[in-house]
Every structure is written in structure tokens, then in C-alpha cells.
């Protein structure tokens, strides 16, 4: 009964979101996935809203839904569509709700095998690749304060990037159909993930580890003593939530919350925008007694930063500029250290890096990132700063691209 009522609510929510749509097509002009998909409308914002309307009709009438899963899963969730829509429709939310309906209604033919695989592995190992211990290797030799109530939460996000890159190369070699077959098998038997090879991009791994060390260093310099869970630190469950596995997410988020409580954490210090947004804005909706103060490390920096005459640019993470536009700490910090030249598309009109599609639709992801990199390059800035490991990983097409933690540390040491 609970599931039925949940589904009913989802369908009503989706109806409400898509019902506002007037089909004007303005959203298509800012949707980052439309052009890279070859202007195939179902992979653009308006198409997604239309597909979502059809999904509602099918669920309500009990008829066979269209095989529109790829339409919803390819959405980058950047919410750029929302800011241009005259009717206030958010195709990102429509896609998200559609994915939730697909999973709660068990519409198998619309499920994405890779999404299903990552969900089952995360549920089993608290990490989408089952490599929680490996994700702590960056901290070897570093000291943390086990008594501190300030918990550093990397969410394994920086660490997973090098594996994601490596796995994508492997997928490229295996081809699409073999990848999907393996994903299906692993989703049914998640322990198989332990047997699968996990190549990683060593160069990226080094950079990501260095960024995490820099973050700890900056926080220590700011007078903050940190606790860190090391090899027991869980992934925050971003994929579960983003891909619509809400029932699993609820259970998982409770598990993460319990781990935080057990560690006597009071303040969770996140280091990436995805975990920050999820823990701050989504967890409280799904987890009872999620009574932690969630913050981002950029808010805690208390070291003198030196200004140097140079032009830099910033690629804003969607989870800041478009999903939490009130969050501008990264901009303030960068403005205090250099001349910040924003790219043509910035703020609420910013452009996603394509990162969220990297595992499910790597071709789209690559094209989106190339386009965005070209826009950032066009500013003529000497450095391109990112404030998210996913953005860094997707945009690191030259030495100019720098994680904000590295940039801040440079500015401290000037």
C-alpha cells in the first residue's frame, strides 16, 4: 500500500510539473544534451517533458509505456531549463520524477542497466564500485582527530573520478552491448564487482589525492581539527538519488546518517557540491533525526589569501550556480585572489560540464565537456578553476584547469 501511495504521489507531482508546460521550446536552447545528441529531441529538455507526460498517461491508464528511459537518464540535472522557461517548468525535475516512477513501478524496459548496477553495488558495499578502502588511500600518513565533532566528508567523490575515467576506457574497448550485459549481471549479483577489473587513470588519481590533501591542509590552517572515517567512509548515495532509486536511497541515507552519529559528528564538512547539496537539502527530507550541521569547506576558510594580478575564470558547478544559486563562496574567494573573468554563460545561465552523463552516456558527456571547455578557454584566462571533482575530471583538457583547493593553496603561499 505504501508503494502504491508513493507512486500515486510521484505521478501527481510529475503531472503538476509537466502540466505547466506550453511546449514553447525555449528549454531546448539551453539544454546541454540536445546538440551533442544530434538534435534528437527526446534527449532535449522539451522532449523529456513530453516523454514524461506520456509516462504519466501510461501509468494512469495501465498501458504499455514507451521505451523512453534514455530520455530521462541522459538528463544532466543541471536545471538550466528551469531558468529560461516562461511557464516555470523544470525538465530536470520531470526527468528525476520519471526515473523515480520507472524504479518504483519496476518498468524494467526503461531501466538503465548501469544505473541498476551502481545501485546494487552501493547498497552492498557503501560505494558504487565496492572500493571504500581504496578510496581512503589518499590520506595515508595524514593525521586526523578522532575526537573532533567536525567530520570531513569526502563522500569518495574526488577518489572515484580516476576509476570512472579508467572504467570508461574499458567500456569503450568492450563496446556497448557487452557493457550492458555485464552491468545487468552485476546488478543482480553485486559481489561480482569485486572480480571485475578496475583500471584507474593514475594521473587523475594523483591530482585528486593532492586536492584532498590540500583541502585538509587549508582547513587545518584555518584552525579546524578534523575527524575522517578513512576506509569506513561511505559514498553519500548521489547516484541512488539522482537515478531515481528512492526507496534504496532512503535506506542508504539512514545508514550513512547512522555512521555519522556513531562517529559523534556534529558538523559534516563536505568537499564537493554534489555531497553538499545532497546532505544539506535532500537528506533532511528522507532521514529522521538528520541533525547535523552540513557545510562546505569553502565556507570555513580563514586564512589570509593574497591577490595577484592575473585573469582567471571559473566553471561554476551546477549544484551551486543553478541548484543553490545563493551559494557563492567560490566566487567570493576567487575574486579576492585574482581578476575573475566569468565565461559568457555563467550564474543561472551557466553550462554543465557534462559530468553526470559520463558513466551512462559517455559520448554525450564528452561533447558537452568539449563545448564547455571551449567557452572557458575563450575567456583568455590563464587558469580555469573548477569547484567540483566531476567538473574537474570532465574539463581537465589542459594544464590550465585547476581545482579550487589547489588554487586557494597557491594563493595562501604566494
Amino acid at each position, binding site marked *: 500500500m505504501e508503494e502504491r501511495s508513493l507512486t500515486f504521489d510521484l505521478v501527481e507531482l510529475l503531472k503538476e510539473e509537466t502540466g505547466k508546460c506550453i511546449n514553447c521550446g525555449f528549454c531546448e*536552447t539551453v539544454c546541454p544534451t540536445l546538440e551533442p545528441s544530434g538534435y534528437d529531441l527526446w534527449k532535449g529538455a522539451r522532449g523529456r517533458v513530453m516523454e514524461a507526460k506520456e509516462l504519466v498517461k501510461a501509468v494512469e491508464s495501465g498501458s504499455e509505456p*514507451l521505451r523512453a528511459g534514455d530520455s530521462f537518464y541522459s538528463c544532466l540535472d543541471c536545471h538550466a531549463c528551469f531558468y529560461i522557461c516562461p511557464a516555470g517548468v523544470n525538465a530536470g525535475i520531470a526527468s528525476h520524477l520519471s526515473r523515480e516512477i520507472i524504479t518504483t513501478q519496476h518498468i524494467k524496459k526503461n531501466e538503465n542497466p548501469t544505473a541498476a548496477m551502481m545501485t546494487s553495488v552501493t547498497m552492498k558495499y557503501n560505494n558504487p564500485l565496492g572500493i571504500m578502502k581504496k578510496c581512503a588511500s589518499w590520506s595515508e600518513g595524514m593525521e586526523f582527530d578522532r575526537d573532533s565533532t567536525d567530520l570531513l566528508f569526502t563522500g569518495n567523490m574526488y577518489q572515484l573520478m580516476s576509476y570512472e575515467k579508467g572504467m570508461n576506457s574499458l567500456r569503450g574497448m568492450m563496446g556497448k552491448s557487452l557493457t550492458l550485459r555485464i552491468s545487468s549481471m552485476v546488478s543482480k549479483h553485486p559481489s561480482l564487482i569485486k572480480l571485475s577489473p578496475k583500471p584507474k587513470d593514475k594521473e587523475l588519481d594523483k591530482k585528486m589525492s593532492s586536492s584532498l590533501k590540500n583541502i585538509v591542509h587549508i582547513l587545518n590552517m584555518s584552525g579546524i581539527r578534523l575527524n575522517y572515517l578513512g576506509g569506513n567512509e561511505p559514498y553519500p548515495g548521489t547516484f541512488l538519488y539522482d537515478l531515481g532509486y528512492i526507496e534504496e536511497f532512503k535506506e542508504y541515507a539512514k545508514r550513512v546518517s547512522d555512521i555519522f552519529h556513531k562517529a559523534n559528528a556534529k558538523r559534516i564538512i563536505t568537499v564537493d557540491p554534489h555531497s553538499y547539496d545532497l546532505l544539506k537539502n535532500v537528506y533532511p527530507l528522507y532521514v529522521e533525526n538528520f541533525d547535523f550541521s552540513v557545510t562546505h569547506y569553502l565556507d570555513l576558510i580563514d586564512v589570509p589569501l593574497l591577490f595577484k594580478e592575473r585573469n582567471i575564470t571559473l566553471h561554476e558547478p551546477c549544484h551551486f550556480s543553478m541548484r543553490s544559486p545563493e551559494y557563492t563562496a567560490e566566487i567570493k574567494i576567487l575574486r579576492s585572489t585574482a581578476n575573475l573573468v566569468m565565461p559568457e554563460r555563467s550564474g543561472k545561465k551557466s553550462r554543465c560540464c557534462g559530468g553526470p552523463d559520463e558513466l551512462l552516456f559517455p559520448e554525450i558527456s564528452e561533447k558537452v565537456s568539449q563545448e564547455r571547455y571551449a567557452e572557458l578557454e575563450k575567456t583568455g584566462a590563464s587558469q580555469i578553476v573548477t569547484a567540483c571533482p566531476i567538473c574537474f575530471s570532465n574539463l581537465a583538457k589542459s594544464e590550465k584547469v585547476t581545482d579550487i583547493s589547489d588554487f586557494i593553496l597557491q594563493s595562501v603561499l604566494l
Partner: protein
Amino acid sequence: MDFVSELKNILPGKVITQKERKMPYTADASYFTGNEPVAVVIPDSVEEVKKLMKFCFSNGINVVPRGGGTSLTGSSVPMKNSVVLSMSKFDKVLEVRPENMYAIAEPGVRLDDLNNGLKKFNYFYPPDPASSVAATVGGSISTNAGGLRASTYGTTKNWVLGLEVVLPDGSVINTGGRILKISAGYDLTALFVGAEGTLGVITKAILKIWPIPEAIGRMLAYYDSIDKVGKAIAKMKELGIIPLIAEFLDRITMDSLERTRKIEFPKEARFALIVDVSSTIESIKDLMEKTKKILEEFQPVSITVTTDPDEMQKVYEARKGAYSSLLSERNNENERVIIGDIVVPASELPVTLLEAENQIKAHGLKVALFGHIADGNIHMNIYADLSDKKQMDAVDSFQSTMGMIAVKHGGSVSAEHGIGIEKKGLLEMQSREENNEDELLLMKNIKKLIDPKNIMNGGKIFDL
């Protein structure tokens, strides 16, 4: 081999046949939903468009060209047994020659993108339909789109110098040229402007471009009657001041903006008038002073004048946000705001608006009015529940009545949205009313000559 399989062979990798992928092509920005197309084709060369047309011509399959899918009258909605031809990949600006005052663009270039590119030359392409962010060069030519600036610059037909067109049988013609003047036989370029894709597929357009005005000043005046608004604009024109834009909003629209956007308007105001004038930097102040005096002659409730870009933007937001404000006040998911589009000589606008108010009451509809007052174009924004037959009948009746009122005053049933599916009946009524049925007959004969198998967006503008 069946039609679709053969089409896939002819255009490998360019044909979409899966139901879920074709579905988003069944609709445009109008309230019509078309049929599932037989296939959707997304070519990226003229050669491929030619192949498609030849094949469809020999098979007698209807082809529906699609640009940004922003038509408000259903021009790009597929009828039965149609192939949708998406021109999205034709998205390049090929040439910009300010010294010759033209730019060459492919049909899939969006109008705002074109203008962003022209900015660095200090030039612009004036047609600016409200959908310019999404509307394309090809689509706006095909509907002869207008926009806010039409009072000074006219509509799209004034800005197209030449076209490359693939005809229904797959042959290609080039009309006009890279020249501002041409007097070499029939003006075939004009024939394709406003043809809504019923005569051929535009694959390239030579567009006239114009220097961006040096300075723009904006005024916002409120009046207690439309008569005063109309007279103020008429007086401006009489004295040789042609406004760059002149937009009016009625009280319903202002109330909606107050509720949804917290923009305050004077209580006594029944109409708001936004006027832009353009000139050189040296003379803009003088021009604004003169314009302000004229506006003041007709006892506005209040008036604001500015050249400050931020202030100008705020005023502009009121007009730009009008439609979305109205949208946010819909009662349910089936309710749409259907945009009517009639035009009368500018001097007839006040009396037409009075008649519109009477008709709104008589039809029991909720309608907000705004539009381009300097060129007599009224947009009637009608709240309509698409699932309520009685209400939709009232909408049809209101639109027909208003169309005929426009014709009575020397105007037309369509100013800038085209005919599409929505106004086919109205076009016929206009022909009859004007005792000008031979014009429509000639249009049909031209269509038959160029498209003897009626495969180019058949069922739009008129039925054969």
C-alpha cells in the same frame, strides 16, 4: 522493401523510426497535437535534403519541415502519413559581410544566436519575435515573423535578400542574391517568405543586416484609456518620430504582473505603454524630450523616462514577463493561454480594442491584451481549457469574430504567427469578407504548380 526501410538505406544514420524518439516531433508550440510521423529525418547537408525530397516525391509522402518548433498555429505539426524533416543541424552562420549589409545563415540558426554573432560587427538582424531565443532563421522566414521592432523595421519579408530552396521534387533553386537591389523578374524570394514550408525546404538564407542603433531611450507611460495610447502613438508618427518599439499592456496583464512578479503599477492606470526611441548619442536626449512631451499631451497617469540600461531592463521585463505571468495564473494543467494575433491599421487600434473588450464579455472568456501598438498588432491571450469543448467553441467563435473585426477595419486575421492549421478557416473567411477569393485561388494554383503532389507540408495554410 517498405518505405521506411528504403529511406534508411538512402539516408543511413539520419532516420529516426522508434516511436519514443518520434513522439516529441508530434507537437510544436501551438495547442495542436499531430500524428505520429512515419519517420523523422535529421539531415546535415543539402544533398541529403535533395535525396529525401526526391524519394518522398516519388512515393507521394508528405514532408513537414521543422525548425525550432515554436509555431503558434501548428505549422510544424505533422499531419497523417508524414515524414518530419528536422533542419536543426543546419545551424551555421556561413558569412557576415557588414560592408555589403548581409549575412548568410543556415535555416536552423536560432535568431538570438544570429544576433549574438552579429553584435561583434555592431550589426543586427531586426526581426525579433517573442520566441527569438528558440525560433530559427528558416522557421521565422516561413511564418514571416514580426516582433517588437516591426514598427520601425517591418517584418521578416523586409530582411530576406535571397534563398536556397530544395523544391518538392528534389531540385534546388537560388532566389535573389547577395545584393540589396534586384529587379530580375518575379520576386520568388518573397514567395517563400510566409509559405510555412508548403512550397519547398529553405536550406540557406541571405539576410539583410543593419547597424545597431547608437543609443536607445525608453519611456513607460500609463494611461486611463486606450484611446489616449493610440492617439499618442499616432501623434508621434505624425511628427516623424517612429518608435523602435511601442508595446502596450492592459490592466489584466498588469494585475497579473503585480501578483506574480511583485511589479507595482499605478492603480488608476488601465493601459501601460512602453516606448523605445533610437538615435545617435548626440541627439537621443532631444528625441526623448520631444517624445516625452507628446506622451504628456495625452494626460498620462504617470510617466518614466530612462537611458540607464538597468532601468531599461526592468521596464522591459514587465513586457517580457507578461506572458509567463499570465501562464502562472492558469487554473489547471488543461488550461492553456492561446495567443490570438490580429492586425489593423495603427489608427484603428483603439476602436478595435474597444470592440475586443465587448467581445470578451459577450463570449464569457478571460482574455488579457497586449501587443505592438505602433503597427496595430494585438495579441489576445485567451485562457482556455483544452478539455472543455464548450469553452473551446467560445474561443473559436471569439477568434473568428475578432478576425472579422480586424478585416472590417482593413486588417488581417494573422499579423505575424502565420496560418498553420489554426487559421485555415479564418483565411478563407477573410478572403470571402474582402471579396478577394481569387487571391486564395491563385495561392492554391501556385502551390499546385510547385508541389503538384501536395507533399510539402500539406494541410497547412489551406486545403487543396
